[in-house]
């Protein structure tokens, strides 16, 4: 099930850490342009490692990362960590401005983009606040705004909502889908939640336990926009059951040597 128009692809990626831990083994993963792909797998199966390799933060020990236009990804990707990872000494606006500042843009020149990114995540009126004055959900919104500010074509997200309460998570899931549609790009979303992946994704890639490989994948053929009604639909429940089944099979597959 290869996307027709790939934005980024991992080809035969392997990763052995200095400690000897084999985190990934011959991982192939393609994200199509304008696709919302979730990478689903148990804790410790190498999801974060795969995403960091895609972002160029960790070098792979085997295989390579292929970008659509071959160029270095710096300006074309946004990365959202599991923790909000904001600079506590800087206001929300200054945090969101960071990628532009590092690219040498002045605060004045960056202001429109920062304003737009904050508005996109519903934080327009919190620009002057400091991270500690924000709730967990708002911090994550600020973190997403920072990833959006360079108008990336690919957004990489590493379990961004895992630490949030369910109500906040639902709201952020809804808003993330509108962010994705507005950015008209690709999202690669790492999660260990079946429900979250089914709600968000156009395709789910299920990984085996460590060393992580792709076990199977499944397209979620439900139209966007999806809203809270989708969460209670029979189609949603059916997909959740199927994806859970695949995940269980993936976990069992590993026990065979």
């Amino acid at each position: 099930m290869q996307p027709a128009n790939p934005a980024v692809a991992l080809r035969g990626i392997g990763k052995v850490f200095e400690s000897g831990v084999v985190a990934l083994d011959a991982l192939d993963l393609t994200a199509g342009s304008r696709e919302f792909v979730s990478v689903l797998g148990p804790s410790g199966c190498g999801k974060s490692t795969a995403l960091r390799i895609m972002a160029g933060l960790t070098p792979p020990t085997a295989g390579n990362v292929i970008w659509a236009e071959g160029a270095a990804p710096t300006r074309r990707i946004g990365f959202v960590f599991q923790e909000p990872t904001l600079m506590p000494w800087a206001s929300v606006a200054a945090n969101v401005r960071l990628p532009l500042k590092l690219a040498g843009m002045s605060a004045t020149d960056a202001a429109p983009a920062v304003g737009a990114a904050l508005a996109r995540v519903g934080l327009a009126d919190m620009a002057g606040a400091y991270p500690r004055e924000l709730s967990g959900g708002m911090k994550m919104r600020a973190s997403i705004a920072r990833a959006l500010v360079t108008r990336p074509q690919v957004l990489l997200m590493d379990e961004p909502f895992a630490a949030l309460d369910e109500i906040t998570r639902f709201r952020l899931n809804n808003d993330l889908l509108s962010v994705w549609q507005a950015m008209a790009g690709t999202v690669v979303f790492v999660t260990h939640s079946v429900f979250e992946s089914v709600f968000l994704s156009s395709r789910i890639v299920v990984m085996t336990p460590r060393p992580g490989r792709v076990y199977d994948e499944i397209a979620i053929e439900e139209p966007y926009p999806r809203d809270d009604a989708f969460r209670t639909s029979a189609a949603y429940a059916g997909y959740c059951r199927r994806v859970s089944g695949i995940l269980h099979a993936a976990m069992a597959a590993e026990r065979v040597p």
Partner: protein
Amino acid sequence: MTNPAAPGSAIARSRRESVLRVTLPVLTLAGGALIWELIVRLNAIPAYVLPAPSLVAATLVSDWTILWSSLLVTLATTFQGLALAFAGGVGLALLFNRSRLVEYSLYPYAVILQVTPVVAIAPLLLVYLPQHAAVLACAWIVAFFPVLANTTLGLNSVDRNLVDLFRLYGATRGQILFALKLPAALPYVLGGLRIAGGLALIGAVVAEIAAGSAGAGSGLAYRIAEAGYRLNIPRMFAALLLLSVTGIVIFVLLSALARVLLRRWHESELEPGG
């Protein structure tokens, strides 16, 4: 179990708490001085054995000119020592952070300098250096280490993910240093500075005392040593009192500095109830 307190009463409680934190030490001081005064008067203890607080206060007024000029000398040494400790501590920490080889070569000696009692180093320094330089060197030796150790800790405790984020966006080394590492280390640097302030005063005092008999100094500690030789015990107490107050003022000033700089963002300086 008590009932959960209403927010109003929690605020009132914390306000009462902060009033107590000021009034109780003041009352303790007043009580102690009163008992001291009574003991001296009732037993008719002579002033060259133990001067009453009232006499110490009177001496503070009568000897003010001489004490004030000595205080200025000690203060100048302390703040120069502190400024050098700040520059040296932060500078060394940055150097260590930049190069592991430099850190391995120099860090043990920074520790040795720190653990060798400054009282023992002071006389040697006085042999080899002009007096003012020797006193300053003592203040620096005791004060720079907390700045170095804290800054190093601060530079090493930068959020790993933030470092990755900076790398992801192609930050230069300079950008990582000035926009990430230094701001992240600031609370630690200020914590180190607060400790260093008191230590710089101690270093200056130790060196002045060591220099005492050489006679050229005129700092507060020198006045204490000199008054001791002359059995001018009330002046010793008056000078001692001034030294304590100086230490307190330095601590309060450096705490206030940390408060102003970190107020909006750091856990250590959160406003009560905020």
